[in-house]
């Protein structure tokens, strides 16, 4: 379970450009929920993810994981339980290392990085198998540097790598936004499959309203640092893309877009 309690977040505090993004922001995500988050630019979606992961500090409030306060925990400590995939496919992998080396790195997450061999030969077959499930032919390119792969291939790898070891939360930050429609579809299906298989608590920010409706069991719409729509379970299932689009237009008109 993940909970944000009374979060205050200011940008450029103490200057003329001071901007209040969150004021007393609350959110509770139950174990096993798959939350899709939509909202216009600047509504605080990515900031919320950054706050959860510890990439940016908060001015006030608490972040709780299973009732344990992690507000003061450093980002890298929190990442033991969190897997994150970014919008930019380059961020989730190491370009100058081979596919095999990248997989080995990810496989060792949460464990000690000592002087034992970087590549565990015994695990190679396992990597080949899970890469094969992608259907991108990556299992035949184990010794190719990741930098020479396409964005879609890299994002698929990033997704695999972030979910290889036991984690509790999966944070997806517009992870299909930089991909072509076909690849995006593939990554989205893969995401759904992994989330269900590993029963991960997932928060997915997306600009694709169709994905937001189709996938996940809860939908949140954010606007100016607030949740203006929060549907779960049956309510969510009955939603159509047009419903959200209408809502989306309303808030856009408000802002004068």
């Amino acid at each position, binding site marked *: 379970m993940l909970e944000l309690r009374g979060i205050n977040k200011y940008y450029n505090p103490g200057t003329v450009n001071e901007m209040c993004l969150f004021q007393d922001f609350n959110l509770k995500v139950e174990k096993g929920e798959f939350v899709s988050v939509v909202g216009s630019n600047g509504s605080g979606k990515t900031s919320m993810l950054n706050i959860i992961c510890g990439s940016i500090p908060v001015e006030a409030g608490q972040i709780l994981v299973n009732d344990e306060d992690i507000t003061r925990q*450093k*980002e*890298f*400590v929190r*990442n*033991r339980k969190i*897997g*994150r995939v*970014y919008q930019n496919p*380059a*961020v*989730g*992998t*190491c*370009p*100058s*290392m081979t596919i095999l*080396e990248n997989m*080995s*790195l*990810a496989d*060792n*997450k*949460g464990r*000690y*990085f*000592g*002087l*034992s*061999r*970087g*590549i565990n030969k015994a695990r190679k077959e396992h990597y080949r198998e899970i890469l094969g499930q992608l259907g991108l032919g990556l299992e035949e390119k184990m010794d190719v540097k990741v930098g020479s792969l396409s964005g879609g291939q890299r994002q698929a790898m990033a997704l695999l790598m*972030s979910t290889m070891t036991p984690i509790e939360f999966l944070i997806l930050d517009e992870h299909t936004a930089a991909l072509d429609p076909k690849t995006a579809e593939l990554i989205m299906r893969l995401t759904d499959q992994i989330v269900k298989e590993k029963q991960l608590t997932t928060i997915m920010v997306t600009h694709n309203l169709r994905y937001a409706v189709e996938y996940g069991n809860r939908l949140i719409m954010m606007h100016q640092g607030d949740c203006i729509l929060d549907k779960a379970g049956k309510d969510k299932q009955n939603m159509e893309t047009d419903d959200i689009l209408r809502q989306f237009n309303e808030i856009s008109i408000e802002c004068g877009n």
Partner: protein
Amino acid sequence: MSMIITILEQGLIYGILALGVYITYKILDFPDLTVDGSFPLGASITAAMITRGMNPYITLLAAFAVGVLAGVCTGLIHVKCKVRDLLSGIIMMTALWSINLYIAGTANVPLFSQETIFKNDLVSGLFAGALAPYATLVIVLVIVVICKILLDAYLRTKSGFLLRAVGDNDILVTSLAKDQGNVKILGLALANGLVCLAGSVFCQEQRVFEISMGTGAIVIGLASVIIGTSLFKNLSFFKATTMVLIGSIIYKACVAIAIRQFEPQSMKLITAVLFLVILILSMDRKKKVKTNA
């Protein structure tokens, strides 16, 4: 012939330094100017120990250890005090100038009468008669090969993987639940350990410690790394560390040839021009093809 031997000796000694610079410049993507201070640091600690009658082989280990300390300091300044990479190196380089003077006692310490790793009973016993001119080269080669093999082995370990990842994509290291700052400090420590070791070997080969011997060391290191990695870019069967060592020898050969045509005071000018030429030549040729087409 003796010129070739000198070039190989010098090239290999600076090759150890280049291995260190390779870690910071290529792997960590950190322009580490500490090198200009940690190279003479190795020399000063060596001079101080040898003049006190200590075993010259022990000085090599001591130099490496002291270099590691220097690297850790640069790393701490950069990571914990959040000073920019270039400035952290400059701060340490400046501080090390005085520290080197403290350690060595004076700006110039000759080691002509003392035993070194190149001049002792064991060496003169092994390399008698016709072999004597090659003694230094062989000893340097052994040290370099050991360094290279150990570095290659390290880069294949889990810790080595993490080091390679942090220069490439530090966000990934954070995602792997590791503190990227610590990994950077580790890399700087290893790199400066090697640089300091190079300083120790150089000092024993030259039989003198001189406070200004580190000036421009980073340029030599960078030039070697850039020559090595760009000349053999398409030869994947060569390890990067091998390429760096060959780059260092090529660089020393270029300097040796150039210096014969000019007066000694133009040494640094030649170094600078040579470095510039190497940088320009090593730039991606693909761009040229595009503009021509």
